[in-house]
C-alpha cells in the first residue's frame, strides 16, 4: 500500500467533516471556501487534531486508527508541515529555524532555496516570499514522507504569488513525496496538483484533474471556483433535443446537457465571444446587455456583459472598441453550456 490513505469524520462548527482520500507520489489539492474544514484535514494527518473517527496510514504504517486506539504523536509521524502564516520561530535565526530538528541538511537546504545569505536573519526581518522559502526548507529538513501545505501562497502579494507558484511546482516535482495542499485559489490548485478535491461544508463534492473540474463541474461551487459563469434558471426539455433554461435574470439559454428543475447554466469565459450585433454563426445563446466591467489580464480582457463574463484577446477588445456602458452581444454555444443542479 503505497502513499497516504486517509479517512476521517469530525464534527466542525455547523457541519460534519467527512472524507476519504488516497494520495500516492503526487500532489493533491484540497480546495474550497474558507471554513470548509480544509485545515482540519491537514492537522489530522499531522497528528495535531484527533478526529472523532479516522484512520491515517502511510505506506501501510498506521498513524491513526481511532477504532483501534492508535494515535501516533506528531513528533513520531514523518510530515513536513508548512503553516499558512509559516509559523517560523521568531526568536531563532533562519538557520536555527531550518535546523530546528537537526543541523545535518541545513546548509544544503539554505542553498537549495537561495536563502544562504539570510542564515543569520530573524523571521521578522524577511519578506513574505523569503519566509515561505524558510518554512519550506524547515519542513523538508527532517526528510518527511508526506508534505502538507496550508494555503502556500495566500500570505503573498499577487506579484510574488505567480513566481512562488512556479518554484513550488518545481519543488513538488523534485521531492516526489505524497503532498496534500490546501488552497482557496483554483490557479494554485491547478498549477500545483495533479488532482483537486473540492471540499464544501465538510464534504468532497468533486475530486478530479483540474481540467475535469473546469469541463464538467459537479456542483455550482466547483463551477464558480474554477472561474466559470453560473447562470441560475429553470430547465425544461426544449426543441431539437436541447434543454431550455429560463434564466432567473431573464432570457433563455440552450444546452446539450439533459436536466430538469432548478439548474445553473455553466459556461467558461473563454467559450463566450463578444460582438456588436448577434452573429449569424452556430452559437445558439445570446445575451444582449451593456458592458459593466472591462478588466485587462495580460494579453486578455475580461468583459462583463450583463450576467456573463467573457474573456477575449486584448487585440479583439481593441478592434471592437469596447467601452463601459455600451450594449453588446455575448454569444456561446449550447455545446459549451454545462448544466449543474442547484439546491
Amino acid at each position, binding site marked *: 500500500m503505497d502513499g497516504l490513505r486517509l479517512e476521517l469524520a469530525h464534527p466542525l462548527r455547523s457541519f460534519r467533516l467527512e472524507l476519504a482520500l488516497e494520495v500516492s507520489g503526487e500532489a493533491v489539492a484540497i480546495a474550497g471556501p474558507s471554513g470548509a474544514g480544509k485545515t482540519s484535514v491537514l492537522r489530522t494527518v*499531522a497528528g495535531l487534531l484527533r478526529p472523532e473517527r479516522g484512520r491515517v496510514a502511510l505506506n501501510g504504517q498506521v498513524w491513526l486508527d481511532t477504532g483501534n486506539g492508535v494515535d501516533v*504523536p506528531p513528533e*513520531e509521524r514523518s510530515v*513536513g508541515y508548512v*503553516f499558512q*502564516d509559516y509559523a517560523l520561530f*521568531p526568536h531563532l535565526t533562519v538557520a536555527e529555524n531550518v535546523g*530546528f530538528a537537526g543541523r545535518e541538511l541545513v546548509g544544503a537546504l539554505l542553498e537549495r532555496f537561495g536563502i544562504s545569505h539570510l542564515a543569520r536573519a530573524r523571521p521578522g526581518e524577511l519578506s513574505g516570499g523569503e*519566509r515561505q522559502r524558510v518554512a519550506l526548507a524547515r519542513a523538508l529538513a527532517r526528510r518527511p514522507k508526506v508534505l502538507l501545505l496550508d494555503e502556500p501562497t495566500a*500570505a503573498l502579494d499577487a506579484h510574488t504569488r505567480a513566481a512562488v507558484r512556479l518554484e513550488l511546482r518545481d519543488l513538488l516535482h523534485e521531492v516526489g513525496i505524497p503532498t496534500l495542499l490546501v488552497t482557496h485559489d483554483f490557479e494554485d490548485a491547478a498549477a500545483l496538483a495533479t488532482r483537486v478535491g473540492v471540499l464544501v461544508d465538510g464534504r468532497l463534492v468533486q475530486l478530479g484533474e483540474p481540467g475535469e473540474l473546469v469541463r464538467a463541474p459537479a456542483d455550482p461551487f466547483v463551477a464558480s471556483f474554477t472561474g466559470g459563469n453560473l447562470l441560475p434558471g429553470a430547465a425544461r426539455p426544449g426543441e431539437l433535443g436541447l434543454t431550455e433554461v429560463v434564466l432567473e435574470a431573464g432570457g433563455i439559454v440552450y444546452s446539450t446537457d439533459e436536466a430538469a428543475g432548478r439548474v445553473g447554466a455553466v459556461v467558461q469565459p473563454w467559450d463566450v465571444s463578444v460582438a456588436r450585433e448577434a452573429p449569424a454563426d452556430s452559437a445558439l445563446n445570446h445575451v444582449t446587455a451593456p458592458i459593466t466591467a472591462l478588466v485587462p489580464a495580460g494579453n486578455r480582457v475580461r468583459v462583463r456583459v450583463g450576467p456573463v463574463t467573457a474573456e477575449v484577446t486584448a487585440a479583439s477588445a481593441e478592434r471592437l472598441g469596447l467601452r463601459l456602458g455600451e450594449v453588446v452581444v455575448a454569444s456561446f454555444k449550447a455545446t459549451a453550456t454545462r448544466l449543474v443542479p442547484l439546491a
Partner: protein
Amino acid sequence: MRRWFDACLWVACAVTLVFLVLPLAAIFLRISPVELLRQLGDEAAVDALLVSLETSAIAHVFILVVGTPAAYLLATRSFRGRAWILTLIELPLVLPPAVAGLALLATFGQRGLLGGTLDALGITISFTQAAVVIAVILVASPFYLRQAIASFEAVDPDLPAASRTLGIGPFGTFRRVVLPLARGGLGAGSTLAFARGLGEFGATIMFAGSLQGVTQTLPLMIYAQLDRDFDVALAVGALLVLVSLLILLLAKVSRSWTGSVSSLLIRSARSASS
C-alpha cells in the same frame, strides 16, 4: 474654558504625585544616608534581612517550579472548571491578609484541618520558618501565575505545533519554543511576585509570628522596632524602598523586552501584507 480644565488636570496630577512621593521621601530625609547605613548594621536588622532573603528565595523557587507548569496547563488546555480555577487563583490578590493568615492557621495550626495529621508525624509548622514560606507562597504566587498564564496564552499555538511536526516532543517544545517566547512575561510576573513576597506582613505575623532570627522578616522587624528604635526601622524601610524600586525597574525592563519582540512581529506582519 479649556485652560481652566487643563489647569485642573495639572493640579490633580501634582497633588497625586506629592501624596505618593512625600512619605517615601520622608524616610530618606529624616536621617542622613550615613546614619541609615550605620543603623542597618543593627543585629535585629541583619537577622531580619537573612530571614527575609532565605524565606523569599525558598518560596520563590516553589512558585516558579510548581507555578510554571500549572500556568502552562491552564493556558493551553480547555476543560470543565477551568474558569473557576482561574478565578480561585486570583482570590488571594483581593483577600485581606488577615484572612489569609487565619486560613493558614485553620489549615496547618495545631487545631487546624491538617494539624492532627502533622502532629502525629511530629511536624510543627505554625510559628516556624516554614510558616513564613507558606504565607509568602499563598500571597505572592497569584502575581506570578496570572502573568504566566497570560504570557503562555500569548504564544501563537501554531509555533509549538510546528515544533511537534519537526520531531520535537512536548517537553522539548516547551523548553525550546514556548519558554523563550514567554520569557519576558514570566520575568515580569516573577519579579512582581518576589516583591509581594518580600513585603508580606499580615498573613505572616498571624501564622508565623515575629521571632527575631526565626520568623521575623524585614517588614515584621520594622513593626517591632517602631517602639524600640525608630531609626533602625527607618533604615530598614529605606532599604525596602530601594529594593522595591529596583524590582519595579526589573519588571519594566523584562516587560519591554517582550514588547520589543511583539512589536517586531507586528512590523513583520505589516511588511508581509504590504
